[in-house]
């Protein structure tokens, strides 16, 4: 199979207030997705106010100058629409999917909260969503097996003061402390059109969509520019080892390394390393730990790519009767083997073929999280080029087996990493 050539045609323009706009036509179903990225995430939070970017995301659904509380969802549902938002370290995104005849409603709602959010914001609104977010934290972390350890991992990887040290969901006391005044400041600082990018994709006519976007977003006032974030590089000096307990049946081992940021050299090679270690039954760790020795119930590996610093994570759960020490010994043997010997051409080809197929699969859906609209916005944010699909794909095929070996050798040192173990409560 020839390497795929993926092209996503788009039109791009910038409004006088600084909002960057990308339009993409896809008429396969009569739906439109309005996808907005604000270039702010939990990394911009300050000490004592962790979790704020995400709490703020919740407030964006609570009405705005011309939309009473509740109407945002009621109007969209009446139009047959859906919506959601999410917050990460580096960005916050929002999408509205509507039947294409309701595009203008979606643009009205999206522009109203960009331009007039504070007109209806009250301390009571903040209190209400504070309670919801605290319950999100309880549900997703405190009441979920191994959930607390996921928070601990970031604290061990990144030093105090680094913006990836704290979790996106935030700490409970900080959620309690978040105030209405914080909301006002955060909105004015980070939610200006110049710090956002908008994708409208799906069943649209480009010229009409452009007119509607200009109309609905034209009256949104510009804000002060936001300085890009820069952080000095971080590195682990040695092994950061910690054991925590949880109400679980089985222990879990997490090994994590600080690795090059998203799209930096070796970022793609580390994706291939992850696939070789734990992607599929024939991957090196799965085959030994789960298939052959059967001392692990599961193993996973991944390069978690982020703007300021990435991390590579291996997690494994021992079978009853086996220990994390047994797993770690095998994992280290396999990492060392990959560091010393280049992988076979068959393994390389298998990984490339899967990467290429995944790019096709990502073309199927327009809206929602991970749809084409979201991907155009992601590429725009990361590279300045919305249609960066081929360039992204082009990072993989040219990699040699030696590149993959070198990435494992340079970035997965056994002596400089986090070793986090979760033990069942009450076990020895």
């Amino acid at each position, binding site marked *: 199979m020839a390497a*795929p050539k993926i092209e996503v045609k788009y039109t791009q323009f910038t409004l006088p207030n600084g909002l960057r706009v990308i339009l993409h036509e*896809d008429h*396969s*179903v*009569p*739906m439109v997705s309005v996808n907005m990225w604000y270039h702010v995430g939990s990394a911009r939070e300050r000490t004592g106010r962790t979790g704020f970017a995400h709490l703020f995301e919740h407030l964006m659904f609570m009405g705005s100058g011309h939309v009473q509380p*509740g*109407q945002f*969802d*009621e*109007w969209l*549902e*009446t*139009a*047959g629409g859906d919506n959601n938002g999410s917050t990460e370290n580096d960005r916050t995104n929002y999408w509205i*999917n509507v*039947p294409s*005849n*309701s595009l*203008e*409603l979606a*643009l*009205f709602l999206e*522009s109203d909260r960009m331009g007039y959010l504070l007109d209806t914001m009250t301390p009571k609104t903040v209190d*209400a969503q*504070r*309670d*919801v977010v605290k*319950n999100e934290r*309880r*549900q997703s972390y405190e*009441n979920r097996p191994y959930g607390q350890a996921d928070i601990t991992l970031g604290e061990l990887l990144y030093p105090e003061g680094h913006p990836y040290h704290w979790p996106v969901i935030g700490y409970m006391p900080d959620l309690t402390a978040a105030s209405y005044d914080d909301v006002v400041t955060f909105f004015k600082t980070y939610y200006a059109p110049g710090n956002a990018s908008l994708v409208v994709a799906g*069943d649209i006519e480009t010229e*009409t969509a452009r*007119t*509607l976007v200009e*109309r*609905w977003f*034209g*009256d949104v006032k510009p804000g002060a520019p936001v300085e890009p974030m820069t952080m000095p590089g971080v590195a682990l000096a040695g092994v950061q080892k910690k054991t925590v307990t949880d*109400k*679980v*049946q*089985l222990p879990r081992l997490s090994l994590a390394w600080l690795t090059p940021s998203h799209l930096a050299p070796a970022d793609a090679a580390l994706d291939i390393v992850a696939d070789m270690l734990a992607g*599929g*039954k*024939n991957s090196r760790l799965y085959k030994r730990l789960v*298939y052959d020795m*059967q001392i692990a119930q599961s193993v996973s590996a991944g390069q978690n790519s982020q703007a300021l610093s990435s991390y590579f994570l291996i997690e494994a759960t021992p*079978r009853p009767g086996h220990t994390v020490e047994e797993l770690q010994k095998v994992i280290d043997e396999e990492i060392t083997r990959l560091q010393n010997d280049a992988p076979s051409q068959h393994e390389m*080809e*298998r990984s490339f*073929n*899967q990467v*290429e*197929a995944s790019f*096709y*699969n990502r073309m*199927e*859906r327009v809206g929602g999280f991970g749809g084409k609209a979201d991907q155009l916005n992601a590429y725009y944010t990361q590279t300045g080029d919305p249609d960066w699909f081929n360039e992204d794909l082009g990072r993989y095929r040219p990699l040699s087996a030696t590149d993959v070996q070198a990435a494992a050798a340079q970035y997965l040192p056994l002596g400089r990493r986090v070793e986090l173990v979760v033990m069942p409560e009450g076990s020895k």
Partner: protein
Amino acid sequence: MMTRRFVLATALAGLTAVLSAQQAPDRTHPPQPGPPPALTLPTIQKRQLSNGLPVWMVEMHKVPVVQVNLLVFSGTADDPAGKFGVASLTTAMLEEGAGARSALEIADAVDFLGADLGAGTGIDASAVRLHVPVARLAGALPIMADVALRPTFPKDELERLRRERLTNLLQARDDPPTIAALAFSRILYGPAHRYGTAMLGTGAAIAAFTPDDLRAFYAATFRPANTALLVVGDVAPDHVMPLLESSFGSWTAQTGAAAHATLPAAPEPARREIYLVDKPDAAQSQVRIGWIGVPRSTPDYFPIQVMNTILGGSFSSRLNMNLREKHGYAYGAGSGFDMRASAGPFAASAGVQTDKTAESLKEFFNELNGILQPIPPDELARAKNYVALRFPGGFETTGDISRKLEDALVYHLPDTYFSQYVQSIQAVTAADVQRVAQKYIQPGRFVVLVVGDRKKIEPGIRALNLGAIKIVTIDEVFGPAPSIPQ
């Protein structure tokens, strides 16, 4: 029936054509929708292979990928008594050795093609599903055919999956939503009914299965007369039919109808009862409230969709607005009818903060009682539009469409089902909604299940006087903790 929204749409049609960017936007009213987009549903082309195997195909040429599913009309509901879990394990074993290939060889060949191949079992059907770049289809189909038609059920692989599944059962005891879902079903259906036990099966059954058990179940269910093929994606029927014929057309073993289990009748609870599963120190209580709902064949399907959308099937639904937006007791709350060949459970559900558990139960019952009252017209119109207007968007990907075709085949939906769907929803009246609410939502007879920190939540729940309280242990839900053979 025309809704107010569509009348407005007609009156304002054409407005967008005269818009100009300079015109200041009128933010005093939400913009009204333009004329509804034409509903063009994909055409289903129905053919068959020389052995009679039906083939349903939908062409989609946007992305060069294709989904091929071999659908078998037997699922976990067909597990014989004492062998709960055999359907699930049989299907999982298909990829663990087939034709001349070992488990590792199958996985390597599939991964090398950049394909996804999976075998899985649902309650009413099983399937082998392939998703692959279309250029690799010819290479992937023979592997898929081996997996579906020529499994070898190797003993060593069975031992491995047995240990893996027993460990899964052990780990399921950690997760409150998993405990809640299973406990709720167990209480409603009891241990003898298939719906009262996890799809994975019981620990005792999993520990005892032999390769012959799996072969017997496979032989009884995987046969052409109990199977259909679905193809959705960037292929032309005339091109793909010969490929399907060469991989599946000579499959003739085991003709005749498959053996299907008959599920025993499951009586509705006579009175409301409260069940508590203790999860010490839990930060939230997982709540499930309901009873046995309806089968997929219910004549009330469309009114139930609308009624449940209002009660707990959308963000603006009453349960979510109350428990999340008004009170902040939960991250989200909802409700759903799990429709299967036989009547599956209806449950209203949420994870609620521990110190508001009793308050939350009170609000659940306020909404369950409230849905029995007449629905305001705007709320009814919103729910109908929400379900109907987004329907065309649900045919976007090969996965979306193949899932819809599977439903149509498994539940014998009429040929006009998809084309009539929007009309069927719009035809639902306020009286229909009230009638199905009163028939299927009977809060005085609902089972209330709470998985949470008993010492903190029991006094408050007791004070509500909802009904008798019973304590359920984790072992009663899951059976004794399995021991995993080394």
